[in-house]
C-alpha cells in the first residue's frame, strides 16, 4: 500500500500546499528550512490537524479528505499512522517490553501474545534480552530503538519519522539509520522522513521533497537533488554554491552583489538562470585553459572541513586546502581571483 498525500493548510498567513506519495517500503524525505511547513505536514498526515482541502490516503483507505464532496477525518488513534520523533518518548512507567507491547494490546491482543511479539520486535531492533529494562536504564540510542520497535509493533499502515536521529551521537545515529531502513523495507511500510540532515536524505530516502514557505520547490532522487540543487536552501544544505541571476553579455551570469560569473551557455541574454558548483571545485591557483575565471572579494571566513572556507562576493563559497591558504590575501574585502573548471559548473534556465 502507498501513502498518498495531497493537502493544503492555512494557518494565519502561512499556507502549505504539498503533494507526495510514498510507495510500500519507500522513504520520502522532506527537507526544508525552519518554518517551511514540515511539522505541519506531519500533523496533517498524523491527524492532529485538519487541512482546508485535500486528502490523505493509505491504499484505498481514506484517512482525511476535505473538499467539495465532503469531509472525512479519522481520529489519530484510528489512523494507524506511526510516529517516531526526535525525542523517543518511551513511556517511563513501563519497561521496554511493555512499551513495545502497548500498540498490540491497545488493538486487543492478549497480554501474553503481545509480550511475545514485543520480544521479537526488540530482537529485530537489536535489543535482544533488554525487555525488562526500564527506560531510564537504557541509553538514548536504545530508547530510540525501543520507540522504533514500539511504532512498528503497532503495524502502522504508514510511518512518520520526525528527525529521529537528531539527538543521537554519530555512531548510534548511523546504526539506527540501518535499523530504520531494514525495518521499513521488511515491513513494506510507506514512510515520510522529516529531516535537516543531508546524511539522512542520502542514506535513507528514495525520494527527496524540498519545502520552502509551504510549497515544494524541488523534488527528485536524493543524489540528483543534492548534487545539483535548484533551490538556495537545498544548495546550502548540500554545501553547493548556487548563483541565481540572469544571463548577460559575455556570456556571464549576473548574480547578486555585482557578481558576474562567466559561463558557457546557449541561453540568450536576459534569460533568468542559475549556476551550481561545488566549493571544492573553485581554485585560487593558476587557471587552466578550460577554466572560468572571475575576480571577487573576500566577505568572511570560517573553518572548513579541511583548511579554510572563504565566502566571496555573491555568497560563493571557496574551500581552500591548507597548502593554498598562503596564496590568498585573507583580509575581509581583499580581491581574490577565482577559477572553476567549466565542466564543474551547471547552468540552467530558472523556472
Amino acid at each position, binding site marked *: 500500500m502507498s501513502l498518498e498525500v495531497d493537502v493544503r493548510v492555512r494557518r494565519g498567513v502561512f499556507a502549505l500546499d504539498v503533494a507526495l506519495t510514498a510507495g510500500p517500503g519507500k522513504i520520502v524525505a522532506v527537507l526544508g528550512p525552519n518554518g517551511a511547513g514540515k511539522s505541519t505536514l506531519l500533523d496533517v498526515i498524523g491527524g492532529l490537524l485538519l487541512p482546508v482541502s485535500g486528502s490523505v490516503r493509505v491504499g484505498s483507505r481514506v484517512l482525511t479528505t476535505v473538499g467539495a464532496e465532503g469531509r472525512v477525518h479519522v481520529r*489519530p488513534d484510528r489512523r494507524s499512522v506511526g510516529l517516531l520523533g526526535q525525542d523517543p518518548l518511551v513511556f517511563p512507567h513501563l519497561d521496554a517490553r511493555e512499551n513495545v507491547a502497548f500498540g498490540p494490546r491497545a488493538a486487543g491482543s492478549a497480554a501474553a501474545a503481545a509480550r511475545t511479539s514485543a520480544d521479537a520486535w526488540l530482537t529485530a531492533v537489536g535489543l535482544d534480552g533488554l525487555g525488562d529494562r526500564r527506560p531510564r536504564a537504557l541509553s538514548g540510542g536504545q530508547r530510540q530503538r525501543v520507540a522504533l520497535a514500539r511504532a512498528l509493533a*503497532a503495524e*502502522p499502515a504508514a510511518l512518520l519519522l520526525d528527525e529521529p536521529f537528531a539527538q543521537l551521537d554519530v555512531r548510534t545515529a548511523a546504526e539506527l539509520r540501518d535499523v530504520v531502513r531494514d525495518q521499513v523495507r521488511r515491513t513494506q511500510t510507506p514512510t515520510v522522513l522529516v529531516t535537516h540532515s543531508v546524511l539522512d536524505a542520502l542514506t535513507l530516502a528514495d525520494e527527496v521533497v524540498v519545502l520552502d514557505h509551504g510549497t515544494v520547490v524541488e523534488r527528485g532522487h536524493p543524489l540528483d537533488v543534492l548534487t545539483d540543487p535548484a533551490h538556495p536552501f537545498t544548495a546550502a544544505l548540500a554545501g553547493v554554491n548556487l548563483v541565481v541571476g540572469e544571463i548577460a553579455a559575455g556570456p556571464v551570469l549576473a548574480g547578486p552583489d555585482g557578481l558576474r560569473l562567466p559561463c558557457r551557455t546557449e541561453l540568450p541574454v536576459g534569460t533568468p538562470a542559475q549556476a551550481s558548483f561545488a566549493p571544492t571545485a573553485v581554485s585560487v591557483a593558476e587557471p587552466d585553459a578550460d577554466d572560468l575565471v572571475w575576480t571577487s572579494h573576500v566577505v568572511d571566513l570560517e573553518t572548513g572541513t579541511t583548511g579554510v572556507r572563504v565566502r566571496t562576493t555573491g555568497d560563493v563559497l571557496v574551500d581552500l586546502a591548507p597548502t593554498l591558504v598562503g596564496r590568498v590575501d585573507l583580509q575581509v574585502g581583499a580581491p581574490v581571483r577565482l577559477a572553476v573548471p567549466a565542466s564543474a559548473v551547471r547552468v540552467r534556465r530558472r523556472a
Partner: protein
Amino acid sequence: MSEPRDRHGVPRLLWAPAGLALGLLVLPIVALLVRADWRSLPADVTSAAAVSALTLSLVTSTLATAVCLVLGVPLAVVMARSRGWTSDVLRALVTLPLVLPPTVGGIALLFLLGRRGLVGQTLDLWFGIRLPFTTTAVVIAQAFVAMPFLVLGVEGALRTAGTRFETVAATLGAGRWTVLRRITLPLVLPSLVSGTVLCFARALGEFGATALFAGNTPGVTRTMPLAIYSAFNGAGVSQGTAVALSLLLVAAAAAVLLAARAWRPGNAT
C-alpha cells in the same frame, strides 16, 4: 575528615528564624506528649466514646477520600486539559474552599443542602432525604474541605506531564480511555498518591464545617476532632481524655504519612 565549610551557602542569619519555625511546628506536639497522663491513657483511648469517635473518623474520612478520588480526579483531568481563562477560573473555584475558613464552608453547605437550602429543600420534598446532622453530612463536609488538595495536586502534575506521551499513545492505536488508564494516570501516580494522602489527612482533621453542617451527635457525627473539642470543654469527660484522643489522632496522621512514604511508585526497579 574535613567537611565543606559552606553548607550550600545558607546565610547564618536564617538559622534563627528556621529554628523558631521548626519549634512552632514541633513543640506543641511535644507539649502534648509531656502533658499526657500516660497511666490513664490506655483506658482513655479504649473507652467506648474514643473507639466510637475513631471508628467514625476513619470510616467517614475513607468515604470522603473515595468521593474525592471518584469526582476529583476527573475534575483534575478536565482542568489540566482546558486552556486560557477556563482553566484559570476553574482553578480559582477549586482553590476557594482551601482558603475559606471551614466554618464558612459549613454554613454554605447548610444553605445548599439544609432543609431550607437551595437543593436540600428539593431533596426533602421529592425524596424525603435530609442530609444535615447525618453521617453523610460528615462525609460531604470532609469532601468539601479535602477535595482541593487532591484536585490541585493532580492537576499540576498532569500539566507538567504534558500531552506528548498521550499523543504517542494515540498514534499507537490507543483510544481515549486506554490512554487515560494506561498512560495519563500512571504518569501522575506519585502525585495521585500524595494527593490522596493529603486529602485523607485533611478529612481526618476536619472540624469546622462538620460542626456546623453535621453537628456533634455521638456515634453519628462526632468524629475525633469533635470528640476532642467536646472532651476539652468538659462535656462529661475530663481534659485528660481530650489529650489522649489528640495523641490518637496524631498517631493516626503520622501512620498515614509514614505509609505513604514507604510506598513509592517505581520503587520496584
